[in-house]
């Protein structure tokens, strides 16, 4: 028998046992300890001994199987021993059945999980509405609240960073901003736009770049600035669409 075994394929000795039982087309309920014990040992011999810690769990199971098998070989004179064996065998079967039940659904779990990883949402935007009514602290806080909050932050830091993220936007050039503003006005089709609308977002750097970009666009005759009187609102209009 040529086995190529890696411990990583199995999550533990029970997994390996189930695998062997399936390979042998054995009914779980008819589990033949004697046969499976030999199979199991053959497998173990091919395992990579460098994973000593993981191996140890498999060895404990091996020792247990050998003990079970040796009991079978003993003369069956003592009924007590006999019952003990059967009890252990049933316990083993019960464990294997439970393990098998879980193994059967794991794939479904994994699919649901992987799908969900591909469905995205946005960051909550609640801060703007948040207000406070009480100074008291809730009494049902748990550490889990902190952990899940931290998870969310880390996940967001990893996932929710669009290619041209905030960081990239901070470093936006005047040329880029000019292009954005031009696009913006080309969609406004000659409407007047409040100058301040361009500054709704972003930090000071963004505002400076936007301001300079507007000047550049006016100089290049892409935009027209209008203001009725001193200190009146300033309006902009795309010149191209005039």
């Amino acid at each position, binding site marked *: 028998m040529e086995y190529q075994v890696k411990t990583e394929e199995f*999550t*533990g000795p029970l997994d390996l046992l189930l695998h062997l039982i399936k390979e042998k087309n054995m009914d779980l309920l008819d589990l033949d300890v004697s046969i499976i014990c030999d199979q199991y040992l053959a497998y173990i011999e091919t395992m990579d001994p460098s994973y000593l810690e993981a191996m140890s*769990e498999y060895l404990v199971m091996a020792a247990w199987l050998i003990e079970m098998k040796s009991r079978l070989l003993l003369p069956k004179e003592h009924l007590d021993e006999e019952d003990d064996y*059967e009890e252990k065998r049933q316990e083993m079967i019960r464990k294997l059945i439970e393990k098998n*039940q879980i193994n059967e*659904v794991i794939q479904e779990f994994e699919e649901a999980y992987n799908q969900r990883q591909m469905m995205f949402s946005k960051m*909550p935007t609640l801060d703007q509405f948040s207000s406070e009514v009480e100074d008291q602290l809730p009494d049902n806080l748990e550490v889990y609240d902190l952990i899940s909050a931290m998870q969310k932050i880390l996940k967001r830091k990893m996932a929710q960073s669009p290619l041209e993220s905030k960081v990239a936007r901070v470093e936006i050039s005047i040329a880029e901003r000019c292009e954005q503003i031009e696009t913006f006005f080309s969609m406004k089709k000659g409407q007047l736009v409040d100058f301040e609308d361009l500054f709704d977002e972003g930090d000071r750097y963004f505002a400076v770049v936007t301001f300079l970009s507007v000047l550049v666009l006016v100089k290049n005759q892409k935009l027209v600035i209008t203001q009725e009187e001193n200190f009146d609102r300033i309006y902009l209009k795309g010149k191209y669409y005039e």
Partner: protein
Amino acid sequence: MNKNEYLSIIEGMIFLSGDEGISVKQIGEALELSLQEVMMYVDELIHMYQKKEVKGFEIVNYGGYFKMVTLLKHKQYYQSLFKENVAKLSKSALETLAIVAYYQPITRVQIEEIRGVGCEAMVRKLCAKALIKEVGRSDAPGRPILYGVTDVFMDAFQLTSLDELPKLKEISDDFDEEDIFNTKYKEKNPNED
């Protein structure tokens, strides 16, 4: 306030709540509506979304929290907007999670009995991932910690409630003491040994 107004506000609430989601109870308290009324409106909203011809996202219910998520079939277009972010779960992690989901509340030792391996590190890790959490203490000697799954888990596995877990395969009817005793002395097949 008429129905469309309620529907609009609820749509806005779900939108604002983002990936956190919002519960029927939260909506009901803010709008002074009964849970039944909120459920009715939310159901109608979900139904409206299902019928939409232009649909970039839909309303889902994960563990009682309604939230908007983009459609699976469009994933490739959104992926180009995001950095690689797929966090894989190992087989051992999935197995441990499944056991907690089906048998909760459950102690670490009970998990180990089903898995057949020690789980201390794994349980700690799943707690750190907020996928499971302490839900109490068992009455057993030593009062060991009981674990259960969290709303992060419900979201990660797209579950509305634990009733939706795939059914565990029934143990065949003939699994009773009698049969096990009867099959015990089965002749060994010489080809198999």
